[in-house]
């Protein structure tokens, strides 16, 4: 897996230069971190990459790192598969809380439509260029993005809970 990461990494570096921020192998999962502006180009490149054709977008999800340095509080993670050669990779882009925007990849993968809506619904990450960026799972008038770590895990409307009975 080392050399897979190396070879993909080299090709990506040759093509995108500094936009490739970091490459690493996490257990057996080649992972590449990019500047967010380049994500659509990277995915387009990987779609017709000569070694592996990453033509299947398995998932997009958000992550909130409240303790990260400024500009990198939010992360969007893309997982892609080459179904023929059974190879997967993970791409990451970071975005700041102040300007929480990432380019949409719906023009390349239709499946990104719902995945990006879900990520928007739960983290409030805006995907620029998405045709219909509205909430998908939560109720429409939910006033906040629940998976951001600034909220309590438990429902805040409860007033009947006695902490001593929950071992706290």
């Amino acid at each position: 897996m080392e050399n897979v990461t190396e070879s993909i990494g080299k090709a990506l570096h040759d093509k995108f230069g500094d936009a490739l921020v970091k490459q690493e192998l996490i257990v057996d999962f080649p992972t590449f971190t990019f500047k967010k502006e380049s994500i659509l180009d990277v995915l387009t490149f990987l779609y017709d990459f000569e070694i592996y054709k990453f033509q299947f977008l398995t998932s997009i999800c958000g992550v909130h790192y409240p303790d990260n340095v400024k500009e990198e509080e939010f992360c969007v993670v893309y997982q892609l598969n080459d179904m023929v050669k059974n190879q997967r990779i993970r791409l990451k882009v970071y975005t700041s809380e102040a300007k929480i925007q990432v380019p949409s990849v719906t023009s390349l993968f239709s499946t990104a439509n719902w995945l990006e809506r879900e990520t928007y619904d739960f983290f409030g990450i805006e995907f620029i260029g998405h045709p219909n960026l509205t909430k998908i799972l939560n109720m429409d008038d939910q006033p906040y993005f629940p998976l951001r770590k600034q909220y309590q895990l438990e429902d805040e409307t409860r007033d009947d809970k006695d902490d001593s009975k929950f071992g706290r």
Partner: protein
Amino acid sequence: MSTENKDIIESKVNITKAPEGIEGAGFFATSLDQVVGLARKNSLWPLPFATSCCGIEFMATMASHYDLGRFGSERLSFSPRQADLLMVMGTISKKLAPVVKQVYLQMAEPRWVLAMGACASSGGIFDTYSVLQGIDRIIPVDVYVPGCPPRPEQVIDGILKVQELVGKESLRRRSSPEYKELLASYGIE
């Protein structure tokens, strides 16, 4: 009726007892409340609003082994407009809350509500942003059946509790100011 037939009826078939009243040759006098209560309580039409695991337990309750039909609730109504009893069984997410409320509003008075299981009663294990913490936050509930999930015996017990309420309910209750106030507290006209 021959005594033989009477014996059979008394031994095998459970017939509800007549309410208290004055009986004589050819007549029987009692209060309207009691007669209506008797009729209503023994022919409840439940509307199953089953969203998750508790709904599975309700299927067992309706099936031959436990057979809710024995208690006069043979006929499930899948239209709220023809139902007497709304049985909410399962986790109600906040997104689904308006639907539950709308179903309740579509039911004609008199209507009763049974919350089955921890989720419907209090949110249960799902103490989280997406789940309604008990349906009594949006509609009035008459009987709560605890458990996760409750056994069919418990559900039947809950239905019998509802029947008790139904049987004793005064005919004027639904037009009383207290009842209007209760509905108003839920924002229902």
